[in-house]
């Protein structure tokens, strides 16, 4: 479309992929040129991940051609793709938690000595890669012991090992916070300048604008077009992606009415000195009805751990909790649920989805579990409930009988949200609920959270995206080094203020 300075290193034309009866991709083109960062944009379920998987040989396209370096190819799988210089970080973290960080980075390109693995060199090289990504973790530690964000960074490290001509990053930033993202972008730019072609998927528009040179937009499995980033204003991009204008987004801007809570009411949930050894330091926290409390902090600051203590996912070993003034013991998730507390884990794959069940079953799971097995929900009621959430959250495909594992990442997240909303909780703890969710849906979810709060629900909201936290929280608790360090009013808080607190008074 524009000046053809360099020939594309990857050229996909007329790609179609079918999952009968769904046609996930329909005649899509993609051109990746060396030395560019190319964003792949589209709503949840638009077909971004599928396109990537078609390239790397996981799905076989029914139509279309793929050329790499001008040669027509069909890769037999990720190994083959990698051997031809195409490295990929897939959407869900796909590493082996049982292996060490070093192995996860180096396996496949491991240094050898006397025909066997050279462990020391492996750790050393892995450390170099980690360092480049700004990660200071022990390469000999096991990957599973690290948080999801760290794992995501490790996955990126792995992709950059060896000589890669093409680097594909499917939503690499979804669980990273600003510092990590900045670091990642530095690395990406460095690679680009070395002539690597980078394909980048993200639902964060500002990130896309910050880092990408060119973008390809998909909608419903079809190609909308290829654009030069600098020439495409945000609202046009959104319009291309969702096929509507962006008033939804604007609506979300003013959703939260930050009316102060009436003085003297008892908190819905009150934690006093709650803590757990090796997890979060004892903290106090009060949550009131109709209030959204945001948790802010750096990666690894302990937000998730705090949330888990509040919801019985982990058992606290210090402190008390009171629910509506009465002492309450949150020993198991079930006990918390019976008190009306719901928790969506940040680890969608590991602790969220039951991927072998259908959308319908996943949505009713929480509600049904609470009713007990002997009182099945009437089928009619289930169908209505499921249909209403599919509609309300825009879950796609809108088929209650679809297996959850066949849904796109963002849609799986919506299903999880529906599962918890269906239980009509009094306190909803959302850990990264908008991870991997497209702009439109994200705005919907923010609006939903605000509406729920307005109806009297109490919400704890965790997000790696600070603006989001600022935008919808009445109050913000700030964590640093697994300790609650401050609590500020959401209404008056500014970004800088919070960033200062997070970083520890600007000391960094």
């Amino acid at each position: 479309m524009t000046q053809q300075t360099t020939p594309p290193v990857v050229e996909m034309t007329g790609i179609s992929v079918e999952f009968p009866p769904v046609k996930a991709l329909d005649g899509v083109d993609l051109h990746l040129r060396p030395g560019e960062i190319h964003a792949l944009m589209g709503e949840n379920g638009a077909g971004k991940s599928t396109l990537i998987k078609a390239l790397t040989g996981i799905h076989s396209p029914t139509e279309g051609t793929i050329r790499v370096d001008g040669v027509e190819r069909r890769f037999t799988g990720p190994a083959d793709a990698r051997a031809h210089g195409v490295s990929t970080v897939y959407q869900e973290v796909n590493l082996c938690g049982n292996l060490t960080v070093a192995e996860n980075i180096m396996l496949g390109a491991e240094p050898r000595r006397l025909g066997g693995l050279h462990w020391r060199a492996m750790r050393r090289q892995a450390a170099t890669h980690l360092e480049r990504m700004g990660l200071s973790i022990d390469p000999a530690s096991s990957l599973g012991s690290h948080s999801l964000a760290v794992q995501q960074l490790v996955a990126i490290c792995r992709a950059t090992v060896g000589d890669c001509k093409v680097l594909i990053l499917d939503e690499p930033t979804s669980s990273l916070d600003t510092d990590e993202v900045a670091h990642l972008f530095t690395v990406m730019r460095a690679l680009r300048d070395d002539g690597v072609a980078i394909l980048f998927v993200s639902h964060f528009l500002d990130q896309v604008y910050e880092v990408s040179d060119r973008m390809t937009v998909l909608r419903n499995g079809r190609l909308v077009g290829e654009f030069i980033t600098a020439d495409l204003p945000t609202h046009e991009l959104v319009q291309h992606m969702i096929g509507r204008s962006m008033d939804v987004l604007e609506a979300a801007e003013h959703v939260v009415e930050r009316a102060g809570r009436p003085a003297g009411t008892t908190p819905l949930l009150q934690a006093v000195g709650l803590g757990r050894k090796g997890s979060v330091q004892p903290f106090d926290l009060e949550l009131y009805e109709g209030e959204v409390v945001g948790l802010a902090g750096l990666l690894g600051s302990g937000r998730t751990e705090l949330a888990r203590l509040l919801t019985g996912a982990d058992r606290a070993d210090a402190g008390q909790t009171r629910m509506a003034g009465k002492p309450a013991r949150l020993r198991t998730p079930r006990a918390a649920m019976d008190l009306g507390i719901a928790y969506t884990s940040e680890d969608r794959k590991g602790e969220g989805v039951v991927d072998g069940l259908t959308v319908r079953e996943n949505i009713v799971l929480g509600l049904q579990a609470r009713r007990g097995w002997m009182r099945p929900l009437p089928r009619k009621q289930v169908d209505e409930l499921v249909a209403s959430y599919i509609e309300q959250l825009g879950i796609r495909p809108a088929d209650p009988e679809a297996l959850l594992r066949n849904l796109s990442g963002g849609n799986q997240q919506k299903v999880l949200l529906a599962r918890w909303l269906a239980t009509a909780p009094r306190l909803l703890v959302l850990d990264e609920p908008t991870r991997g969710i497209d702009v439109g849906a994200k705005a919907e979810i923010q609006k939903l959270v605000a509406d729920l709060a307005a109806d009297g629900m109490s919400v704890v909201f965790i997000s790696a995206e600070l603006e989001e936290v600022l935008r919808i929280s009445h109050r913000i608790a700030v964590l640093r080094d697994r300790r609650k360090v401050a609590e500020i009013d959401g209404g008056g808080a500014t970004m800088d203020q919070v960033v200062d607190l997070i970083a520890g008074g600007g000391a960094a």
Partner: protein
Amino acid sequence: MTNLLRHHLFWPVAALVALLVANTVASPGFLAITVRDGHLFGAPIDILRTTAPLLLVALGMTLVIATRGIDLSVGAVVAVSGAVALSHIASSPNPDSPVTVLTAIGLALALCLVLGVWNGFLVSVLGIQPIIATLILMTAGRGVAMLITGGMITTVNSAPFKVLGSGFWLGLPVAAVLAFGVFAVVAFVVRRTALGMLLEATGINPAASRLSGVRSKTLTWTVYAAAGLFAGLAGLLISADTMAADANNAGLFIELDAILAVVIGGTALSGGKFNLSGTLVGALVIATLERTVTVVGISPLVTPLFMALVVIAVTLLQSPRMRERLTAATRRPVATTPPEPQSAARPDSTEVKAR
């Protein structure tokens, strides 16, 4: 045609039909059912009766497998059940009284339930891996059964008890009526309540289920208890069949048969989605296969080889890979099927296509 081929019960049923055909060829009167002494008689009826204990054990096994577990101890539980019941009857002064028999049955079932609960305790509370947890009882259970019978085969004469094994009810074998009845009730309960879904959720993703408020531990506990109870019932049927409690041989290797039945029926051992109707067909296939060996006249020397070949054939035909091939072949002309190596690397086809 394609739909029929793709149905999860297609291959198990096909195997069953093939076996029946083989039997009929070897012995033309095989499928004939006659009425004799006011009840039905014939090879198919025999098969129903011999399926009964296996069906019960496989039923419990299916539920256990759904939660990602496995129960190796069922064979030993079968032995314990028979030993308890028959020892009680044998030691009572009045073996023909229904009270004695009912007490014996009650005692045996209660003990088996306790054994099941024990397994459940090891698995769900102590967190011991199911295969090892149940291996403990698999070894010790037979010892307990032998302790009860003193290592001898305990035989009794008790008309009410004999009914369980060789009695007839409405022309059908009591054992079969009982087993298929229990099976139907359990299948109904599991599928009509939310139990099935909760079990599947526990089996597929225990962590997610826990966070969703599913009482996974209680469920796990329950299925092992149920497996114990059903195995106990099977033990009663087996001992009533010969009116003897053989602590060494009763239910020997029935756990393998049961697991095989579950798998032939299309339930994955990795847990999650389960399929009770498949288990039913699987149990029938195995019972028929055993009968086939005799009727077709396979020499004992090659019997294991023959069994192996049948199992290999059924599982290969039923394998996701073969199904894919077959459905692909029926769906579209060969020319457009994707090139060979591509589908080999399809990561999500492991289970998606399995059902």
